[in-house]
C-alpha cells in the first residue's frame, strides 16, 4: 500500500504546458498503452512468467510516474519487485490493486483532460 495521491496535479499541469494541444493525445496514448501492458501483466501471471511480469511492471511504472500517477507507479514497483524475486505468490493481489487504481487514474485523467 502507499499513501501517494492518485494524480500529481502539479506534474500534470506541467505536462499540459509541454504538450499543449497534444495533451489529449498524450492521455489517449497513455491509456491505450497502459491497457495493453495490463493485459500483458495478466498473461505473464497466468503463464507464471516472473521475468516478463517484472519487465512489464517496470515499463508501466515508468510511464505512470511520467504521467503524474504516483500511487499507480508505486503499485507497479511492488509488482516489479515480486517479479524480480521470482515468487509470484502475492502477485494476484497486487495486480488487482493495479487494475482498480488504473480505473481510478483513467477516470480522473479523462476528467482532467476534459477540463483542459
Amino acid at each position, binding site marked *: 500500500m502507499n499513501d501517494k495521491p492518485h494524480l500529481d496535479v502539479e506534474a500534470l499541469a506541467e505536462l499540459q504546458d509541454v504538450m499543449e494541444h497534444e495533451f489529449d493525445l498524450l492521455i489517449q*496514448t497513455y491509456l491505450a498503452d497502459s491497457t495493453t501492458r495490463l493485459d500483458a501483466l495478466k498473461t505473464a501471471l497466468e503463464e507464471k512468467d516472473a521475468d516478463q511480469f517484472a*519487465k512489464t511492471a517496470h515499463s508501466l511504472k515508468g510511464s505512470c510516474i511520467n*504521467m503524474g500517477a504516483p500511487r499507480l507507479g508505486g503499485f507497479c514497483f511492488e509488482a516489479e519487485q515480486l517479479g524480480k524475486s521470482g515468487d509470484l505468490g502475492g502477485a494476484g493481489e497486487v495486480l488487482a490493486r493495479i487494475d482498480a487504481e488504473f480505473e481510478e487514474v483513467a477516470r480522473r485523467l479523462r476528467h482532467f483532460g476534459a477540463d483542459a
Partner: protein
Amino acid sequence: MPPLKVLIAEDSDSDRLILARLIQKLGHQVLEAVDGAEAVELFGLHQPDLVLLDALMPRMDGMEAARQIKWLAADRLVPVVFLTSLSETADLAQCLEAGGDDFLIKPYNSAILEAKIRAFNRMRVLHLELAEQHAQIQRQNERLLEEQRLALRVFENVAHTGCLDAANIRHYASPLSVFNGDVLFASQRPGGGLLVFLGDFTGHGLPAAIGAMPVAEIFYGMAARGFDGPDILREINRKLQRILPVGMFCCGAMIESDFKHGLLRVWNGGLPDGWLVRADGERVAIPSRHLPLGVQDPQRFSASMVVLNTSPGDWLVLMTDGFSESRNQLGECLGEEVVREVLADLGAGQSPFEPLMERISEHTGEPLPADDLTLCCLQIVDDNTEEAQAGRLSESALSGATDWRCVYELREQTLAEFSPLPMLLHICMEVPGLRRKSGEIYTLLSELYNNALEHGVLALSSEWKVSAGGFSRYYQERERRLADTDGHFIRFELSHRPRLGGGCLTIRCEDSGEGFVFAEASDTVSASQPVSGTTYSGRGLEILRRMSSHLQVHGAGNCVEIVYEWMLPGETGHGGNGPMMMENSR
C-alpha cells in the same frame, strides 16, 4: 547552442511522446525509436549528437544498444544517457559499464533535461575541438615529416655518399642522422688516397641540420679539386664561424689517408678519441686536440694534422659521442672505456665495426642504434686495390673535352696568394678517361708549379733543404720572398689530343725566373744555359722524368715541357711510363 540531433529510444508510447516534445521545445531535432534495434539502425543512418535510451526495451535492450552505438561512433564522442525510474544501484552500474554516460530519471523534468543537454553539448564541442587540434597537429607533423623527406633529398644531392660505399669503409649512420646533427663524408682524392670527415653539430633537428649543407658542399667540392685536409678544415671553420650563431658549433674529425705512402693525417676537434688499430694489435688513440669547428676565428684556427704511419690491414675508427652515451633500459651510459675493451679484444686485422655495433645492441637491447650515433671504420689497403676502386668511379664513353689547348698565366701578387693547381687539374679531368690518372696528373702539375715558383720565381736553392736548419730557413725565405713577386709570372700551357684508347697531354710550364742549371747536358737540353742560376731541384725533376713519356727544357731552362701519353686499361699502346727522352743530373 546550435540545434542538436537527439535520438530517443523508449518503448512506452506516452513516455516517448513526452520526451520528444520536451526536447523539441528546447530547440533540438528528435529521432524516435521504439526499441534498441531501431535505435542502432537510426543511429547508423543519421549520426545523432546525443542518444537517450530506455534501459528495458523489447527486441534489444538499452545496454546492448549502447554498446553497439558506442562501437559505431568510434572516435566520435556521442553521449549516451539512460532513461530510468529510480531503481537499484546495481542496474545503474550496469548501464554505465555498457557505455552510458549519465541517467535521466523519470518523471522527466524540462529544466534538468536542458541542463544535461547543455553539459553534454559542452563536452561534445570540447571533444570536437580537441579532435580538430589533434588532427591539426597530425597534419602539421605529417607536413614536417614531408619537409624532412624533401630536405633530406636536397641534402643527399649535396652530400651524396661519396665513396662511403667503398669496400674498405664500414660505417653506420642513420638516414635521418643529419637531423641529429651528424654528418659523414668520404671522397677519393685526385692525387690518390682518401679523405673522410665525421662531424657532430650541437643540438638537434633543423638547427643542427642546417650547418651540414655547407659543410658537405665545401668538403666534396674542395676534395674533388685536390685540396688537402687542412685547407678544407680551414674553409669549413671559416664558413661555420660566419653562419652559425655563437654557441652552435660542429665537433669533427678529418682523416686524410695516403695509401701509397702508408701515411694517415688526422685532425680531431671535439669528437671522442678516434683510434688507429694496427694489424699487429697496437692501438693508437687519436684524441681531440682542437676546438670544434665554427668556434675559433680563422686567424687562430689550427688545422694542423697529426701524421701516423700505416700499413695495409690497419683500421681507423671514428665515432660520435652517441656511442659512449648510448643508454640501456636503466638509463645507464655505455661509456668510453667500452670502446677500448672492444678494440683490445679484436683479432689480428679483424674489422672493429661489427664488434662495436654488437656491443651497442647488447647494451641498448635494440637491433639498431639511435639516430645520434655515427660510426665509421676505415681499413688501410694496398694502394693497388684502392686504385682499382678509384677507376670504377668515373669511366664513361670517350666523348667530351678531348681535343683542346689552353694557356693560363699567373702574375705578380697572385703568385703569392693563389694556387692554380686545383683548377688546372679540374680542366684535365674534363677529358673522359683521364680521371683515373688524376693522381699522376696532379703530381705532374704540382711538381712543375712548385719548381717554377720556388726555384724559378723565388730563386730558392734546394740545397738548403739538405739540412734541418736549412729546411726551416728555406721556408722562412720562401715566405719572405713571396711578399715581393713584382714583375714575375708563371705560365701554363696545356693541350690534349685524343688517341685511340687514350690520349696525349702536353704541359708546358714557363716562369719569369733566371732558369736552371743542368750539369750533365743531353741532346734535348738547350745549349744556351746560363752558368749562374739556381739548381733545379733534382728530386722534383726525377719524378717528372719518371712519370712522363717526354721531357724537354727550353730557353734559359725556365721553361719545361712534358708529354704525358696515356691509355685506358685493356687498350694496346704504351701508357704513361714511356721511355725517357732526356737525362739530367741533380
